[in-house]
């Protein structure tokens, strides 16, 4: 199927972009990073086309559904959103150093995605719901924002350590100042948080329409709540003395680890523990 070929191409482009950004940091040449930006733009075009094509192909197969309904598709959608978010951040903050920390997330996500079944499968009845589609899309936009935030939080921790040591040399010296980084960690989350909130709500609405219970404490739901609580803690950490900066950055990274657990861990780790079944 041609959409899969385009997604494979996207994977290569993400890999090249990550390499260019890392290379630019290492060689301290902004020119290399500029090339990275153009590769990202190309990847955005290719992956958007691939998503559209996949949608179209599902119609041609008589299944006709939005491409966000299985593991492969949601991973791809996540990588697509991370890339887009990254490009926005790069433009707004006029610094290409973020790329080295954010684009590898998109790249590894795609590597993981292409190991999964990429065929277009028909939907079982429970999944035939607009609420579900809204749920997946909002959640993954949220996750993408959290990924960007966590990447920048990592930069913050490195930079803060260097500033404490009053050093400016090395790769870290090229990063924007801690104030900018701290601000960006926060800004990514104020985009992610409303989307995650909307994602949990639409998920609850879906569950309510399908089963008559909007909340049943199943592991997936519970983990999404855990993620939400961690980011709520982050938001309050920012407005509290003594919880700025370092602790807030750690909360952002913790939040993203919880996100990964919510998304992959529940299916891969916990379902091995007992009989949850895929979800």
């Amino acid at each position, binding site marked *: 199927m041609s959409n899969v070929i385009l997604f494979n191409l996207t994977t290569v482009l993400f890999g090249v972009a990550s390499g260019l950004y890392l290379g630019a940091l290492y060689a301290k040449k902004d020119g290399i990073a500029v090339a990275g930006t153009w590769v990202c733009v190309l990847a955005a075009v290719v992956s958007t086309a691939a998503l559209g094509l996949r949608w179209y192909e599902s119609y041609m197969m008589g299944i006709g559904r939005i491409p966000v309904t299985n593991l492969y598709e949601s991973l791809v959608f996540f990588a697509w959103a991370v890339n887009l978010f990254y490009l926005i951040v790069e433009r707004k903050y006029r610094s290409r150093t973020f790329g080295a920390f954010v684009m590898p997330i998109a790249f590894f996500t795609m590597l993981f995605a292409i190991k999964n079944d990429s065929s277009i499968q*028909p939907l*079982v*009845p*429970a999944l*035939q*719901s607009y*609420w579900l589609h809204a749920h997946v899309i909002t959640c993954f936009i949220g996750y993408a924002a959290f990924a960007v935030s966590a990447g920048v939080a990592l930069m913050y921790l490195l930079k803060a350590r260097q500033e404490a040591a009053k050093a400016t040399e090395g790769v870290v010296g090229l990063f924007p100042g801690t104030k900018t980084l701290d601000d960006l960690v926060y800004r990514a989350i*104020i985009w992610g*948080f*409303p989307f995650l*909130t*909307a994602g949990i*709500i639409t998920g*609850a*609405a*879906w569950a*309510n*329409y*399908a*089963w*008559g*219970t*909007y*909340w049943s*404490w199943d*592991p997936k739901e*519970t*983990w999404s*709540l*855990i993620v939400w*609580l*961690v980011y*709520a*803690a982050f938001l*309050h*950490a920012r*407005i*509290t003395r003594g*919880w700025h900066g370092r602790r807030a950055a750690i909360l952002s990274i913790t939040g993203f680890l*919880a996100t990964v657990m919510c998304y992959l861990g*529940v299916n891969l780790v*916990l379902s091995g*523990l*007992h009989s949850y079944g895929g979800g």
Partner: protein
Amino acid sequence: MVDEKRAPAPMDRVWSFFTSVKLAIVTLIVLAATSIFGTIIEQNQPPEKYHQVYEDWAFALLDRLNLFDMYHSSWFLFILVLFTVNLSCCTIDRFPKMLKVVRNPRRKLDENLEKTLSLSDRWKRKGALSDWSGKYADALSSSFAKPAVTEDGGAVHLYSEAGVASRFGVYVVHTSIVIIFVGAILGNVLGFKGYVNIPEGEAVSQVPVRGGSRVQDLGFTLRCNAFSLETYPSGQPKAYKSDLSVIDGGRETLRKTIVVNDPLRYNGIWFYQSSYGQAGGATAQVTVAKRDGTPAGSLSLAANEPVPIAGYGVVRGINYDRNFQGNGPALQVAVEKPGKPAVSFWILQGRPELDRRRDDTLVFSFGGLNSKMYTGLQVAKDPGVNVVWFGCALMVVGLIMAFFLSHQRVWVRLSPGADGRVEVVLAASASRNRLAFEKKFERILTGVKAEGQ
């Protein structure tokens, strides 16, 4: 004593404990961390199942800590209550202060305020102060928002603001959390959840409640008229439907075909298509005729159940094949005639004439398998659900207000300068997104400065 004055009274200490944001952070993290247990330990399973997994001491410990049903345990509930008290106290503490600030903003740009504002500019103009203040008030109105004018000992202060709603966003979010809790409690106290299987053609007026032995009266009768299943070519289910009727007061008051994701609602009770299955065993429909074609009755054969035919023998359906040797559905029948050994043979649904070739007084033809299905319905009554949705909508609105609106304030001070000219200071601040506001500030500044030039 000096110390006595400094040490806060006990009540104040309690109050500041419950209004502290640090407590909120700790509670949020504790809620997040403890919630993990319930995702690792499977919840609400029968004890036998736990004994298979855990040693006796571990079972006793986990049971003691309520970790087998932790989300309804008293300690988890306690954290939730603490959280809610914290949230409420914090709101009660801060909301009036915020309201006071919003109602009574600092309309005068004094030296202290000026120092805290990073966006500012100053210039001088010749002419009468009152002329300039009028002009600048108009300019501010057209480039930003209509200002409030305050005169104070020869100086004139203009103050205008936009996006005050942003200050309320946080309170909307916090209130929405409490509303969602209220909705959840309403649903738990006044509602019920149940599950029922209804075979086709049958009806129920009571539903067993989940997680208990209680039975809930519906107050009406629900009948399943028919059930149908559609599959993809691969055999996966594509859609399943139940044709349901509500019978209330002796007559049908509602009829609806429900599918997954599209429930039926009557009197506040919702019925959700949830599962399906075969109701009892299938029966094979067999018609019997004499060799000359005169009908000799029709049989409904349950698996292996003997059915006598007077003057002939006993007939049993012993086997069914969906595709017998490539000829479609077929039934294997065993016939025992008095004093003779039993014989068995296949009859094909698609080719009834073949049975005539058998040397017998009766000819059998197979009309197909008749399997009665049942539909499995989740039943729920949740009078709090709309309260929950209202809270959810409010939360999203509140988040947007808090994060994407910005309280923007602009001050202009005109004062008589030592050289007889009018000294003008314009300063501004924004509660959010300062980067974007800087551009807006430049526009406002240019607009105001150009006035009267």
